[in-house]
């Protein structure tokens, strides 16, 4: 049985930065991740990562990846962690493919899109329903589409889609759109946008592909005929697998200033934690802090 000193879960800005620090500390470690770059890879234009006045998300993710792999880091990509458990002095991490063991863990598994939880969502995922307007928007030229949500990510998706689609419906479950005023104003100027406030999606319908949605508001239910559904209702932390790790009401992992969780040997960093701001540069900084804390923990406990 191979035992690592450290396992890093996640390869977004936090996990990758942690891996760079761990490699430079000559720690015997492994990185397990579903993807590389995390949410940063899905970002459009990034203009606030120091040193880059302008870089796209995929490009920055690529640079992160190159930096990580420069140290011959062992990466288990496309593996999803299902369970993290403590057995005596060791942690066991079960993924969809294998089981790994380590003396310490950094959880940097980030956040994922929140799901609607309505009939049709699962069936029509990638069959007209998507969580990434940047990726899939271009497939809906001259089609009718709906954006579900009313915050900045929904407005951002809608603003991308007004240039591509024929008609854009915004289904917002609060009484008025949120987000930045400048984005709302841009949307008002678009001729092909209809906003339904105080409205909820009841179901997504279609045959092989999406052909419509059913929504409900004060005036009752109605069917909208459309081909694309863009779900933009926020994010949830990827923290389910960490059953014994303390979390806040949003399921974010609670950490202290040293990135320690309630379990000695388990550290966490980035968007999966309760760190006050979610930014690429903050996640990266938190990843380095977590790696340094883990390194100190391993030195003190002298396994």
């Amino acid at each position, binding site marked *: 049985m191979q035992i690592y000193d450290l396992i890093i879960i996640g390869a977004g800005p936090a996990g990758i930065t942690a891996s760079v620090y761990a490699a430079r500390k000559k720690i015997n470690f492994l990185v397990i991740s579903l993807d590389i770059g995390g949410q940063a*890879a*899905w970002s459009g234009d990034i203009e606030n990562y120091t040193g880059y006045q302008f870089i796209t*998300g*995929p490009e920055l993710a690529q640079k992160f990846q190159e930096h990580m792999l420069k140290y011959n880091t062992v990466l288990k990509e496309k593996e999803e962690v299902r369970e993290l458990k403590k057995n005596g002095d060791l942690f066991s991490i079960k993924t969809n493919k294998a089981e790994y063991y380590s003396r310490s863990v950094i959880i940097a598994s980030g956040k994922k899109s929140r799901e609607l939880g309505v009939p049709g969502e699962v069936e029509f995922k990638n069959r007209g329903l998507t969580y990434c307007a940047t*990726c*899939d928007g*271009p*497939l809906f*030229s001259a089609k009718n589409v709906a954006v579900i949500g009313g915050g900045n990510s929904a407005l951002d998706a809608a603003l991308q889609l007004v240039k591509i689609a024929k008609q854009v419906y915004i289904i917002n479950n609060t009484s008025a759109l949120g987000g930045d005023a400048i984005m709302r104003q841009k949307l008002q100027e678009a001729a092909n946008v209809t906003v339904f406030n105080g409205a909820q999606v009841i179901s997504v319908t279609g045959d092989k592909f999406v052909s419509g949605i059913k929504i409900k508001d004060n005036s009752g239910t109605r069917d909208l005929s459309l081909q694309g559904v863009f779900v933009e209702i926020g994010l949830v932390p990827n923290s389910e697998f960490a059953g014994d790790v303390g979390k806040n009401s949003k399921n974010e992992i609670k950490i202290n200033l040293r990135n320690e969780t309630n379990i000695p040997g388990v550290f966490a960093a980035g968007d999966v934690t309760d760190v006050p701001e979610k930014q690429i540069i903050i996640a990266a900084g938190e990843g380095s802090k977590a790696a340094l804390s883990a390194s100190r923990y391993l030195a003190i406990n002298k396994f």
Partner: protein
Amino acid sequence: MAKSVKIYSTPTCPWCIRAKQFLKENNVEFQNIDVSGDQQAIDELMQKSGQMGVPVLDIEGEIIVGFDRERIKIALGL
């Protein structure tokens, strides 16, 4: 003999970029089909793969949805 490789993509999707990069690194020649605003290409993508996500690779008729590195390697004999 080199296999015919097509990739259906959009310029903005991260996995499309990764997939194309992977093909280039392995010196695989491929035809990139940017489906943005190209209804005919979109129809082809939907008909071949039964879904609307990108990237989709067509390697000598074998359809691979998403950047599935292992399947791509096997299909290309890498």
